[in-house]
């Protein structure tokens, strides 16, 4: 992206019909650490990579519970994400109070998108620099949406945002057809695999990632580190069993194939019914 004379403020169009400030905001999302989401008919899993600045500091919170039936994972300017999460929580709680019923996630997402759009059409504002993966349950089932700084929103079966998200997207594209009918645990496993893809060879451990689940009969909650580590250990073990090339922590390209084979065979032998 090159600097040009049309990118100073958000209310200036370029001759090509682009709003550069909005596009730069979307760049900020691409620079943030990865967040992924995937859904089945009844559950949605959100996951994100948590890198702490140094060993001394704690990592940033990137997954927020918005209500019992809605949660959000963010990538980009986390401060903007926090503010938007507060807005979403407010909307949910006000709706709940008036109607004693959960706010349908589809409506929340539209309200959020409209809020983002305002910032693309006021000269004294700037677009929110954060992408949100909104996971929620509705009357019509489980939904996963992606809200963009541009004010657009899209519904997805599975998606990844942030840095190195392309690797996760490739994995998800290969596997997404199995998600609709997947069990909750398989969905979490797939989320962990997708996160592993974005780590590009680094070992996947529960200290670098966060997983959250929401589903029918299961309110939104973040899984604790111990549970996540157990699940990681479960499928990593299976991966090792499957042959020398599939040793954990090897090249990312070798792993997905082996994992797929491992996972498939593993479902028969699996020690993962822990």
């Amino acid at each position, binding site marked *: 992206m090159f600097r040009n004379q049309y990118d100073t403020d958000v209310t200036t169009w370029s001759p090509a019909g682009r709003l550069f400030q909005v596009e730069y905001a979307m760049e900020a999302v691409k620079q943030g650490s990865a967040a992924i989401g995937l859904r089945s008919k009844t559950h949605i899993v959100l996951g994100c990579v948590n890198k702490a600045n140094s060993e001394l500091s704690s990592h940033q919170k990137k997954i927020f519970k918005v209500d019992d039936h809605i949660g959000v994972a963010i990538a980009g300017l986390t401060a903007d994400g926090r503010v938007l999460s507060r807005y979403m929580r407010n909307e949910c709680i006000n709706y709940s109070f008036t*109607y004693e019923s959960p706010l349908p996630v589809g409506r929340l997402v539209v309200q959020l998108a409209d809020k983002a759009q305002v910032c693309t059409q006021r000269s004294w504002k700037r677009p929110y620099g954060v992408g949100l993966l909104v996971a929620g349950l509705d009357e019509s089932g489980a939904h996963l949406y992606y809200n963009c700084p541009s004010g657009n929103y899209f519904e997805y079966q599975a998606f990844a945002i942030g840095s190195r998200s392309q690797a996760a997207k490739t994995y998800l594209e290969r596997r997404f057809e199995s998600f609709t009918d997947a069990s909750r645990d398989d969905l979490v496993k797939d989320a962990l695999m997708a996160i592993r893809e974005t780590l590009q060879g680094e070992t996947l451990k529960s200290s670098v990632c966060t997983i959250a689940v929401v589903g029918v009969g299961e309110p939104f909650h973040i899984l604790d580190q111990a549970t996540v580590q157990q699940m990681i250990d479960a499928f990593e073990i299976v991966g090792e069993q499957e042959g020398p090339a599939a040793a954990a922590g090897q090249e990312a390209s070798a792993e997905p194939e082996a994992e797929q084979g491992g996972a498939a065979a593993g479902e028969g032998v699996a020690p993962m019914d822990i």
Partner: protein
Amino acid sequence: MNFMASKQPENSLLGPEADSQRTLYPYVTGTSVVALKYKDGILMAADMGGSYGSTLRYKSVERMKSIGKHSLLGASGEISDFQEILRYLDELILYDNMWDDGNSLGPKEVHNYLTRVMYNRRNKFNPLWNSLVLGGVKNGQKYLGTVSMIGVNFEDNHVATGFGNHLARPILRQEWHENLSYEDGVRLLEKCMRVLLYRDRSAINKLQIAKITEEGTTISRPYSLKTYWEFSAFANPAQGAVGTW
């Protein structure tokens, strides 16, 4: 001149009460509404009377209205406040429809919305002078609730307003059971309405029965109940109590 001049300061001395927009007492009122859950949904009955104090002034007032796809609202109390509530609900349902997504407000949501409205008005000392009955079916779930003018709300298998609470509820407590058929439900409601007709002076013999099921709402044509006035107690009412009238 003098007359006009004195009006102004008095008004401002009254402070907040100078606001002439509050309901202080009701003028045109409807009497009881009775409703019960039956096998396929909700049955609700209300007569068509609008009393102006002790005068039975209006005799074609529809006190039950369908709200959205899933709800039915019946009201007793001030008719103009009921009409105001219908306007609020109209707007609510309109915005709900404008979302044009797969979601819609069900009876539970409408009931809670009304509770908030009634309670908030009560807190401002400007109540909507109604007792409301809200029933409906959504996704197979039957719902029946009531809200009073001060915001008291609850759900039950059968509800009533006003005199209905005293005369109809005891009958329903005895005779209501789960999975009433449509005919049994109507018979039960008519029994309640007949008692109200005999004993409530604001009741008139012209009523409607409304039914709401998953398929939708139907409000019956107005009709009247058969009554029997030849009971011996009616023939000579003063017999047991000399001096009574």
